[in-house]
């Protein structure tokens, strides 16, 4: 069904249009979020949040960009917010542990295994995802959208609201940083 029509129907409060939207774009949103946060449970939660926001703020979608681009932006923003919150919590936990208030055992998550990676590449992909986590935010987003979601440079630039040349430069820097991290770890 035409996405413009779906959006119009959702704006009118049509529940079935919302169901079609969730069913059509859930994999796209989940895969993007998972690529950024690298935790299945968190990715599920954030994906739900993304669709809740879509439902609540559909009236703010003016149709200047493609609907999928708007969805990607919400997914990326929510994922980054989640990452920042997690970092803040970690920092706060560290301060509390200095004062001896926190006796909880810090659980370090195991290497992330993306379910869409072929079995023979799992180990290498886990090493790559570990290195992706060390990249600065912009480079990480550009790399995930391009490599994990398979978006073209033009599509990445639309999502990130920047020029294609900036995306090229971001991806170039991301790749060289990843190579550096991977060689350091060996």
């Amino acid at each position: 069904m035409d996405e413009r029509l779906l959006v119009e129907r959702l704006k009118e409060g049509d529940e079935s249009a919302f169901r079609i939207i969730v069913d059509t774009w859930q994999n796209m949103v989940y895969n993007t979020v998972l690529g950024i946060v690298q935790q299945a449970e968190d990715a599920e939660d954030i994906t739900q949040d993304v669709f809740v926001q879509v439902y609540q703020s559909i009236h703010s979608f003016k149709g200047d960009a493609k609907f999928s681009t708007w969805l990607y932006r919400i997914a990326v923003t929510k994922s980054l917010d989640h990452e920042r919150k997690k970092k803040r919590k970690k920092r706060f936990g560290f301060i509390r542990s200095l004062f001896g208030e926190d006796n909880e055992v810090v659980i370090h998550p195991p290497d992330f295994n993306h379910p869409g990676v072929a079995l023979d590449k799992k180990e290498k992909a886990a090493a790559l995802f570990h290195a992706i986590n060390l990249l600065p935010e912009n480079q990480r987003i550009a790399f995930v959208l391009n490599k994990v979601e398979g978006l073209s440079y033009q599509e990445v630039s639309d999502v990130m609201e920047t020029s294609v040349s900036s995306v090229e430069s971001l991806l170039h820097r991301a790749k060289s940083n990843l190579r550096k991290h991977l060689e350091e770890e060996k």
Partner: protein
Amino acid sequence: MSEQKHRDTEEIMDSLDGIRRATPAPFLYTRVKARLQKEGRTIWEQLGSFVARPVVTVSTLILVLIFNAVIVLNKEKSVESSRIAITSPQDNNSYDETSLLAATTSYDYVNAEP
């Protein structure tokens, strides 16, 4: 050795080639709907849960205490200054002036003794 290292790195870099999209657990729509219903509470329910937060309660209590302390301190100050004003000689003069004015109201003219 470095040739091998370089080759390994490149293999890792290419490990995401041909990756397939991950899919969420089934019935995502049902869970999204449940979350929407949970968030669609009335304004009074939202307000109630906000007020019930310990941080909000404690900070409101502190604000009320500070407000009370400021009022009490200001009252004490004003009582003290009015006491000074009553006992000052300047005030005696103004009292007399008002007494004079009070003596020449229309009532006095109407009820003037012959």
